[in-house]
């Protein structure tokens, strides 16, 4: 009998004697730790305040949440105003009023160019200390400001700046959060009546908002987070995690400005316009077509985008007011002005009180359907040319260049070309002599106005300010590029109708202006403007560019390749 090697039994015995209890405990502890790490709870979403807007709108120092300390100048002598309300004296001496908000000394308002405002104090600031001694409530602040002041000597005032929070609270009182789009009533229960009174469809908003999940029935929730949020951001700020890597950047809904729409100039887009962008996408950008989503999901998303846009525009208006030192509306004022549900003719009553900010914004949305650009009908021949139908001889062969039909077509193209280079339309100055979109490439669109305003500054300061903006969440600024008209890619749609509207009313938010149209009955003057019928010639010219010789080489190559394959 040979010696066995180390068989399993012996081995096990030697090894198991070395198992200590602590070892078991260690193993289990490791497992528990791993599971504990895996089981971390969800973080609450943070809806970032629009700090970029705050910086653009107000003094550059403005931030919406900080604890600045300022040197508050005092007048040479004590104020003469008296009486029971110390605000009169405060207003006289410093140009500010204090309110008593939950026992704190809160600046209710400041007057422009008076000491408080020039020192950088803002409405809503909570005074926390004066000259080093801490201030707990309004009487203490009044005492320090009026009784303990050394007149003629500035005092150090430290404030807790919470306007960001105040604006957030105001928005919450009207809009809820983007994850829960309904206001929360005093007892904590959701209250959709307010948004309904502004004409929003709460069911659609709710199916779009919040986290992603699907019901047993297959109904999908969280549509916005599922399809949109990673580019457009969860609050519609156009700054989702992917946004910085897209060219062009995704739209920031909060400005309420949209480019590709059927309405005039700066008017809001119609519901159908947004629906069309969502369905067709924006060719040539990272916005894909969502054609294959069910129509009800697309409808819900468009409703939600309108909600985010109204919410964002309201926020911007509030910030603007805050930055200018104006008083901001109370929640009741802010939410007033409704209801704004369109009547049978689609009309709504315009809110008159400028404190009814939400109603004012919603009104512009509800009126969009009244502002649609309806182009003049082109001639029958023009319709055919625009559809790519070339003049033909009776036998179906292409008409020669000297046939009357072809001559008329070429004449239309020539008129369009003349307009392209003419002074009224002046297309070439941006789109370039050869329509490649290289006429100018240094301008900025509306979303980068803050960058444009820095053009006049020395380069070194510019970089510093840009860095400050980016630190607040702004995307790195980019120039707006005029479209290459030979590429055959039309972001706003390739229908002649779309191109007509782009030319007729310009592109909102960009340097692309509306063409100047001669008033009806005016004498033709190519220097002053064009007739609406002539715009079709220009559309015809633009639509023909991708098929003209300068655009050809790739096509020839393609024909060659197709030949090889056949």
């Amino acid at each position, binding site marked *: 009998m040979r010696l066995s090697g180390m068989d399993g039994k012996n081995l096990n015995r030697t090894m*198991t004697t070395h198992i200590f209890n602590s070892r078991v405990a260690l193993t289990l502890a490791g497992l528990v730790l*791993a599971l504990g790490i895996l089981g971390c*709870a969800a*973080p609450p979403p943070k809806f970032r305040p629009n700090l970029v807007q705050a910086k653009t709108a107000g003094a550059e120092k403005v931030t919406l949440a900080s604890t600045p300390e300022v040197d508050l100048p005092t007048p040479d002598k004590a104020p003469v105003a008296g009486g029971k309300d110390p605000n009169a004296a405060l207003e006289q001496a410093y140009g500010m009023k204090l309110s008593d908000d939950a026992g704190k000394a809160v600046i209710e308002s400041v007057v422009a160019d008076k000491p408080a405002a020039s020192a950088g104090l803002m409405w809503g600031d909570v005074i926390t200390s004066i000259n080093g001694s801490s201030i707990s409530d309004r009487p203490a602040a009044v005492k320090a400001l009026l009784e303990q002041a050394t007149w003629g000597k500035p005092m150090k005032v430290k404030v807790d700046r919470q306007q960001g929070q105040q604006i957030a609270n105001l928005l919450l009182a009207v809009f809820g959060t983007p994850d829960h789009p309904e206001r929360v009533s005093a007892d904590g229960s959701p209250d959709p009546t307010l948004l309904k009174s502004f004409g929003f469809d709460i069911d659609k908003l709710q199916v779009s908002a919040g986290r*992603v999940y699907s019901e047993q029935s297959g109904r999908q929730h969280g549509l916005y987070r599922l399809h949109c949020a990673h580019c457009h951001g969860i609050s519609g700020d156009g700054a989702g*995690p992917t946004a910085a890597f897209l060219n062009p950047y995704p739209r920031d809904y909060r400005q309420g400005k949209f480019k590709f729409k059927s309405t005039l100039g700066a008017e809001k887009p119609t519901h159908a316009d947004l629906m069309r962008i969502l369905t067709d996408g924006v060719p040539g950008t990272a916005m894909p077509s969502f054609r294959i989503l069910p129509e009800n999901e697309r409808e819900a998303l468009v409703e939600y985008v309108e909600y985010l846009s109204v919410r964002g525009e309201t926020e911007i208006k509030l910030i603007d007011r805050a930055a200018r030192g104006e008083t901001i509306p109370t929640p009741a004022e802010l939410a007033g002005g409704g209801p704004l549900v369109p009547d049978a003719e689609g009309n709504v009553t315009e809110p008159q009180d400028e404190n009814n900010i939400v109603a004012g914004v919603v009104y512009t949305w509800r009126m969009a359907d009244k502002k649609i650009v309806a182009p003049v009908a082109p001639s029958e021949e023009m319709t055919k040319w625009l559809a790519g139908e070339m003049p033909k001889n009776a036998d179906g062969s292409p008409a020669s260049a000297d046939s009357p039909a072809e001559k008329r077509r070429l004449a239309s193209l020539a008129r369009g070309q003349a307009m392209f280079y003419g002074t009224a339309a002046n297309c070439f100055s941006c789109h370039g002599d050869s329509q490649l979109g290289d006429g100018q490439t240094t301008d900025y669109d509306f979303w980068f106005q803050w960058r444009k305003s820095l053009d006049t500054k020395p380069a070194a300061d510019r970089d510093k300010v840009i860095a400050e903006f980016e630190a607040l969440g702004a995307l790195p600024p980019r120039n707006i590029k005029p479209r290459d008209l030979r590429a055959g890619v039309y972001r706003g749609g390739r229908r002649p109708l779309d191109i007509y509207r782009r030319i007729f009313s310009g592109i909102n938010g960009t340097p692309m202006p509306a063409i100047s149209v001669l008033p009806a009955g005016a004498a033709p003057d190519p220097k002053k403007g064009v007739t609406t019928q002539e715009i079709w010639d220009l559309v015809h010219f633009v639509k023909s560019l991708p098929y003209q010789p300068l655009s050809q080489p790739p096509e020839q190559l393609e024909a060659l390749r197709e030949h090889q394959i056949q």
Partner: protein
Amino acid sequence: MSITAEGFHAQEAVHAHGHAGLGKFIGTYVFSRDHKIIGIQFLFSTLLWFLIGGLLALGVRWQLAWPWSNDMPLVSKMFFAHTGGQISPEFYTMMFTMHATVMIFFVIIPILAGAFGNYLIPLMIGADDMAFPTLNMLSYWFMWPSFLCIIASFFVHGGAAAAGWTSYPTLAALQEASPGGHMGQTLWLLGVTFAGVASMLGSVNYMTTIIQMRAPGMTMFRLPLTIWAMFITAVLQAFALPVLTAAGFMQLLDRSVGTGFFLPDGATANNAPYATGGGQPLLWQHLFWFYSHPAVYIMILPAMGMVSDIIACFARKPIFGYKPMVYSIAGIAGLGFVVWGHHMFISGMNPYLGMTFMVATIMIALPSAIKVFNWLGTLWGGKIQFTTAMLFAVSFVSMFIIGGLSGIFMAATPIDIFIHDTYFIVAHFHYVLFAGTAMGVFGSIYFWFPKMFGRTMNEFWGKVHFLLTFMFLNGVFFPMHILGVVGFPRRLADPYQYETFHHLLGMNRFITYCAIGMVCSQSIFAINFIYSIFFGPVAGRNPWHANSLEWCCPSPPGHGNFDFQPIVYRGPYEYGSPEVQTDYYPQHQPPPEGAAPATERYMDG
């Protein structure tokens, strides 16, 4: 045992206590030229990266089980707090790219060639060190620039590379095409190039050492299969790697100076300016797979070798068909150079070429099949000891059968049209690389741990670790075959938006639960490993009663390895030889008086 050890221990003591001071410490343990220290350095580094790669995989699995959930552990809070905690699609892309990169370039290749190759080659051939110790040290330290590049890439603007580990142009070559395409992709290319240099230095060393440094009597056909596999792997690397290095540099140039090797006319993405052009994206695929297909064998052959040694040892029986095993390793390596095109069947490559590559690819299953049959032959009629190392080795065979057979589906071009880039292929290569190689590596760690650290790992917890890993890995990877048959595509952050794949969420959740279980059960291994280094039972020179040369030197071996000059009398698999009374018969043990040498028997394979 016939070895007297006292003299050696005295020598070892001088080594242990003679080097005082920090400088000596660094020279001995940090910038060491000793192949064993370098091997252990490789082992520790790769195990650490194994953890990182595993966590990245968990991230991928999380998204596939709970797409767009806003409560992904750690990641939601760390990276996506301001967007409500949802991971972004580009982060998902980055996770699977870096999972593959880390696992392939920082775990599997270096743990096989770097850790075990370094540690075992001189010991198993009876040499006192590598042929070029300094080069060997460099091969480890060249990994560090690579580590740093990859770590840094997580923190640069745009994040780490996100074009897949295959880094296909034009996605990878155009800066604007993806977020990770900015700095991350450049760092990725640099990292992979450095890792390639490290492999290159290693493989030159292994080839030279194996050819030049064998102990007296150690003929080529007395080498353990581990060494044969390491040798052939080194040859493969030496021939294939320069191609990847060149291709990597070409892509770097495309990205940085605008050469356009891989960019066709007018290539652009994301409205960036047009690239110079003149190149061809498929060129990269050819060059990349010319390396990376042989690399697939670089990633499995050493494991096959080590598993052969473990199986023979614990079956207490000579390996079945030693020479066919060697020839099949060589056959796999040779054919491995002419099958790269099977990664490109639907890439737009000339379809006639597809037929050629199909035949070559299907034929490469043959040597793999021969190996499996020989392993089965080795088990047949043995006396099998169920140690942890043996369980892992047997599971390697069992799992490699699955991985090998599923490869035949991919090799068949018409079927590949359907299952290419689906989870079928994900299942296939994880069965080869995780269920195969990683299980082989676990077995090898349990097997050679006593030699490396002088102590034995705990067997009970080792078996618990094995059982959990084995169960969970099949739970993770086997259902993926079914997903692949439905056509479930890989690399999609949210496949459930497709109607065809909407109903596969349940199976994916199951897979994710198993994946979480699998990663958690590795903590048993980690604790067992670390604990045993310090407190495990002390092992003798030859705890498993194995035959090959490394078991005749002390555990752990001192500097210079052997305390006597080993002379080799026979092959490494003489278990159960009738010539001796023991059931093992070490290579260096002189035959009893008058016995006929047993080596000729090898020729009958």
